[in-house]
């Protein structure tokens, strides 16, 4: 699967099995919360990297204790207007200390990328013919921001009073 990750086109080594009937026997895999609950022991034993995909009504609190097992957390935007995953992303980065890949999936579009970047996502499954171009366009929109968030960019307030 083609992704934009850390500002570059990347191919995900993970198979997203979250919507599938069966989990592939080998290789890095992304599972749903239900699959994780049902096959937790087997998944931990397979010795591959794991990812989990959360629906927008599944807050990260549900997997907080299991986070060390995941290399990828994929947060779903079922519609671009559903903004819950922005909060989830910040909680994962700022409160639960998640350092792995935070992937935006679902209806991920150019005009919302800026918000996703700032809330801590670093991988984007962009619905576009030219995802990298969209990513760069979104990144270039602003050079000033007011809110301190997970990405650590200095805010206008911090720049004003840095001396």
């Amino acid at each position, binding site marked *: 699967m083609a992704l934009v990750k850390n500002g570059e086109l990347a191919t995900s080594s993970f198979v997203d099995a979250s919507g599938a009937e069966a989990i592939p026997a080998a290789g890095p895999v992304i599972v749903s919360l239900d699959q994780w609950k049902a096959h937790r022991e087997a998944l931990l034993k397979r010795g591959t990297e794991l990812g989990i995909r959360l629906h927008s009504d599944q807050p990260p609190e549900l997997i907080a204790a299991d986070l060390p097992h995941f290399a990828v957390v994929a947060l779903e935007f079922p519609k671009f207007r559903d*903004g819950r995953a922005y909060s989830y992303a910040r909680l994962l980065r700022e409160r639960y200390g998640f350092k792995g890949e935070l992937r935006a999936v679902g209806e991920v579009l150019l005009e919302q990328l800026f918000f996703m970047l700032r*809330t801590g996502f670093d991988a984007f499954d962009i619905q576009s013919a030219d995802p990298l171009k969209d990513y760069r366009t979104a990144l270039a929109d*602003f*050079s000033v921001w007011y*809110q301190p968030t997970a990405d650590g960019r200095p805010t206008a307030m911090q720049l*004003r*009073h840095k001396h």
Partner: protein
Amino acid sequence: MYRYDEFDARFVNERVAQFRRQVKRRLAGELTEDQFRPLRLMNGLYLQLHAYMLRINVPYGTLASKQMRKFAYLARNYDRNFGHFTTRQNLQFNWIKLEQVPDILQHLADVEVTGIQSSGNCVRNITADQYAGRAKDELADPRVYCELLRQYSFLHPEFSYLPRKFKIAVTGSPNDRAAVAVHDIGLRMHKNEQGQIGFEVLVGGGLGRTPYIAHTIRKWLAPEDLLAYVESILRVYNMQGRRDNIHKARIKIIVNQMGIEKYRELVDKDFEFTKNGALKVPEDEVARINAYFAPPQYEKLEDQTQALAKIRSGDRVFDRWMRGNVIEHKVPGYAIVNLSLKAPGKTPGDITADKMDAVADLADQYSFGEIRVTHRQNLVLVDVKQSELYELWHKLVELGLATPNLGLLTDIICCPGLDFCALANARSIPIAQDISRAFTDLDELQKIGQFTINISGCMNACGHHHVGHIGILGVDKRGEEFFQLTLGGSSDQHASLGDRLGPGLPQAEVPAAIRKIVDTYFVVRQQQERFLDTYRRVGIEPFKAAVYGEESQAA
């Protein structure tokens, strides 16, 4: 007033450039209307019945004369020579072309004005007491905190796709002129037991189809914790608010569903993490912003009340205006002057381009170049020398801006209604005009005393009908417009929602019904009792009987 520094200016210009691209993508078909809609709304652009409408922020109701002149310029060059001030202290243009909006926004950015988040499911323009920094009854000037919230809310990465819109209002006076109890968050500055000034935080108020008075979620909040606490309220709402039904998506629904205790518990839990973090408001930033709100260079003046009394005794019309529209200033020798946008037969809140320019000139000449916008859709010059009141009044009379009806029955709040709005069920403006024509006797208006009529053209309640002493709601019954009356609403520090009087009335019967309510009030009131107090004492029955006849009491 606040001025942009290099960061604010760059941000707003970048925002205009971004919207220019978004409009281009829309016109090229790269964005569907469904995808474009929230983007244009978050720049203040609505698609209404006849054209695009652009809503422009007047942050906490404070406007510089050059900004008002820019509104006049835009009204002339991009609209039909007028604009409309709203209940959220904003300005709306009604006849806008999509392809011209980026240019309009650039014109606005040049004078430090934006349409950012004047609509959309995000934090809207922060509103405040229109007399902030000037009123004698004020405890503290709330504008520095409004400005902090304005900056904090602009393009918030986490909260730009909330379940629904989110409105914050702030008052620094115990006499609430900002209607904080009917906002998603209301902030009321007051002192705690140690004498420190902070905020009482209210949450979950709102009008619309399910009106609620807000609950107090925190009795006292330290000012330095304001942003952190607001962030926690917003985060809980963003995660818990309903997204399955647009009519149940406001914070008031979730607060009242789970109960204020539970909501408070969730917010407090989150606040444990936010309160000592990067959102703590630094003292030097408060000082930086406060410097912009330093009082203007007042002259040392004697109080002119006696000299004015002499003029007033010789000029009854001036006297009436003084009594109604001029309010005490905290600095001796100065006064706060309200300009009524409610002349008989006119549309409440509307103002022509020429009058905008004239008001800007008067502000420069008499009031340090500053203008305020009220949530009751009037304008204010906040720093007028008492010695110049008589001269200013003459000029306002000529402009038709001296109707002495502030706070009286014809000082009507009215939404644009079905004449403009795509959501409306009924035409609200003609009702306001009819009522103002039916009550032109200024002696009578004064005799009636403090009175608010609020009119909405649909249940979305932009005209705040639930909190008018008389509320009027337009409804559509099988293609015909009817108007339901409510009595006893109020948006001040003793906020209440009006009670429904009875079945809806056709437009032609509304002024007569108001007349009957007023006549009944004259009969049952005690001494100088306000209508609202009379209503609260005697209840709805006498008024119901007056409007619908005795048979209604049996029913």
